[in-house]
């Protein structure tokens, strides 16, 4: 028991240290400037982490499938823009560091109203109500000028001149550290919540709605409170967004962002507390990195997502933690060779798939944009047959080979699992 706890704490501490030091790894000592791209990406990761973690309060912890989570993020953002403007005008004596609390309260307020409505129903009806709410709010944000600013959104200047530490927040790096501080606070708070009666009963309600009733709890109340609190944290994320970009438009509360939250929480792993954070980091990385190289990153994310839904519903963290009993029994070495044998054809398959996707993409979209496909410095003619053939062979040949190896791997895995003791609960 203490072994896992200290390993976990160690991992989190290392992660925090890395997050704090990252901007300096990409520091250009000649110009004396941090890499703008890296700092921007890190800030995005921070905001998205809060979004994904708060979303998982619903998805992973309470079993609630919400489509309007971005609404609270966005409203937190919109409200913060107004707070910033008020603070800048001298009408709001709140230091910058504490503004996110106000953002959170805005998200909380709205989540109480919407949560009351949505949690009246269960399962699919709940999901549909949230879908309606999300669409409603997006249309409202586009249509109304007061508070939302219509299509153009609202903007503010974040140099409000109030700060607990006398900082100006002119530079992106300062903003990043503000974000990081709030990510730490929010993460700790959300983790703390999981260890409270409400947090536990949220899990219980997720696992067995009826049983919770027969323990004296009104499951609806549990869900309502969980929904409201998740809106609080989403609001904080939105506030940080507003501070960073100084402009908020309807994108900050629209369906694609809610979808993003779902993707990040699910792919990272909704069954473990830290999973969504991992998912947020990964997806942001993919988004920033892959989208530089390819137009089709959405296809890759979609395929990754579907693959996980089909074969790894507990996400990446789930996959990693599934190895725990094997690792504890010291049998990890037995998996080394099977993994190698599976990874190789897997890689070929992925290469083939990427090849086909990129070729197709360049055939239509790329051509219209006047770009040509360059791979390892070689220009590839998308109209020639050879690249298509190679990609197809890689995909299908690799695929067949992969299936054979995957079956063998599965056998080894089952055998190992049978040898070790039953797993401890993840929660």
């Amino acid at each position, binding site marked *: *028991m203490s072994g896992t706890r200290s390993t976990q704490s160690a991992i989190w501490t290392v992660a925090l240290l890395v997050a704090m030091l990252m901007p300096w790894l990409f520091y250009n000592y000649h110009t004396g400037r941090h890499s703008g791209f890296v700092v921007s990406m890190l800030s995005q990761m921070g905001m998205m982490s809060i979004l994904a973690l708060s979303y998982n309060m619903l998805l992973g912890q309470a079993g609630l499938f919400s489509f309007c989570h971005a609404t609270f993020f966005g409203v937190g953002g919109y409200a913060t823009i107004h707070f910033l403007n008020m603070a800048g005008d001298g009408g709001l004596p709140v230091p910058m560091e504490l503004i996110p609390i106000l953002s959170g309260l805005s998200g909380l307020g709205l989540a109480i109203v919407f949560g009351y409505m949505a949690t009246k129903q269960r399962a699919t009806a709940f999901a549909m109500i949230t879908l309606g709410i999300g669409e409603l709010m997006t249309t409202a944000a586009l249509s109304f000028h007061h508070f939302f600013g219509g299509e153009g959104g609202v903007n503010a200047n974040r140099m409000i001149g109030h700060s607990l530490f006398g900082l100006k927040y002119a530079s992106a790096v300062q903003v990043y550290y503000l974000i990081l501080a709030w990510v730490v606070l929010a993460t700790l708070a959300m983790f*703390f*919540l999981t*260890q*409270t*009666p*409400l*947090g*536990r*009963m949220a*899990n*219980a309600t*997720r*696992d*067995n709605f*009826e*049983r*919770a*009733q*027969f*323990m*004296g*709890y*009104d*499951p609806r*109340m*549990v869900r309502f*409170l969980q929904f409201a*609190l998740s809106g609080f944290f989403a609001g904080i994320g939105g506030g940080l967004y507003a501070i960073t970009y100084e402009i908020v438009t309807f994108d900050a509360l629209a369906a694609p962002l809610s979808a993003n939250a779902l993707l990040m929480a699910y792919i990272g792993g909704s*069954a473990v507390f830290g999973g969504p954070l991992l998912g947020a980091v990964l997806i942001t990385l993919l988004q920033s990195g892959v989208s530089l190289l390819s137009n089709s990153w959405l296809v890759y994310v979609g395929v990754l997502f579907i693959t996980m839904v089909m074969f790894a519903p507990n996400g990446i963290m789930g996959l990693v933690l599934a190895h725990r009993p094997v690792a504890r029994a010291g049998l990890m070495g037995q998996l080394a060779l099977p993994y190698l044998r599976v990874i190789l054809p897997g890689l070929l398959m992925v290469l083939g798939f990427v090849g086909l996707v990129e070729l197709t993409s360049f055939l239509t979209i790329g051509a219209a944009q006047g770009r040509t496909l360059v791979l390892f410095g070689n220009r590839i003619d998308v109209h020639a047959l050879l690249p298509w053939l190679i990609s197809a062979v890689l995909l299908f040949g690799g695929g067949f080979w992969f299936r054979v190896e995957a079956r063998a791997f599965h056998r080894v895995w089952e055998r190992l699992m049978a040898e070790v003791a*039953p*797993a*401890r*609960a*993840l*929660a």
Partner: protein
Amino acid sequence: MTDLALRLTDVSKAFGLTRIISGVNLDVAKGERHAIIGPNGAGKTTLFNLISGRFLVSSGEIRLNGERIDGLPPHKINRMGLSRSFQITSIYPKLSVFENLRCALLWSMGYYYSFWTPLWIQRGLNERTDKILEDLNLTARRHTAAGLLPYADQRALEIGMTIAGGASVILLDEPTAGMSNTETDNAMELIRRVSKGKTLLMVEHDMKVVFDLADVITVLVYGRVIASGPPHEVRANAAVQEAYLGALVAA
């Protein structure tokens, strides 16, 4: 009147046009061990569902310790002192055994919907949970995910979760279903222990369990009570024998 833990007056339940329960009258005294038996489809689980608030009665009254509970939502009925177990094991599969039991204690120990109390430092709560774990002989499985327990242990956990909250009236729906003889004996021992001083209402098919444990037996056939009384009376009742054995007895 208030000596009765549970009183059903003329309770009926129909789903659409199909009557499942017709005019059932049932009295369960405080501290009594009361078993409900009957052939399959007699409506025993439906009766439980009516008492525990899962279904609404079509007509009639149900009183718990003198107060009406029909029409109330299950969580309110539970707070008034009635708890039930389920025929199909109903636990929290992804939580550990310890967590399952701890959740059962939360409301009765006054934690309610608190989201500011850290559970890991609540000594009283955690100690009580460990005590119940011991009573159930599940201490070794403290950290196991409940969904991974062997069947008999899950049933034991189910019973544990039912009584943990300190309810005075306990409904057990086929607690020994699917158990082997040894497992049944262990379960009976457990039930005897945990129901001391409480009122027990039990649906059972295993006659050995019924006749060993019960003070009073009620026989339900096609949604009607055809006999109710101490075991030896019920055993000798001709209508009961016919219901169970059919024409064979008449022959």
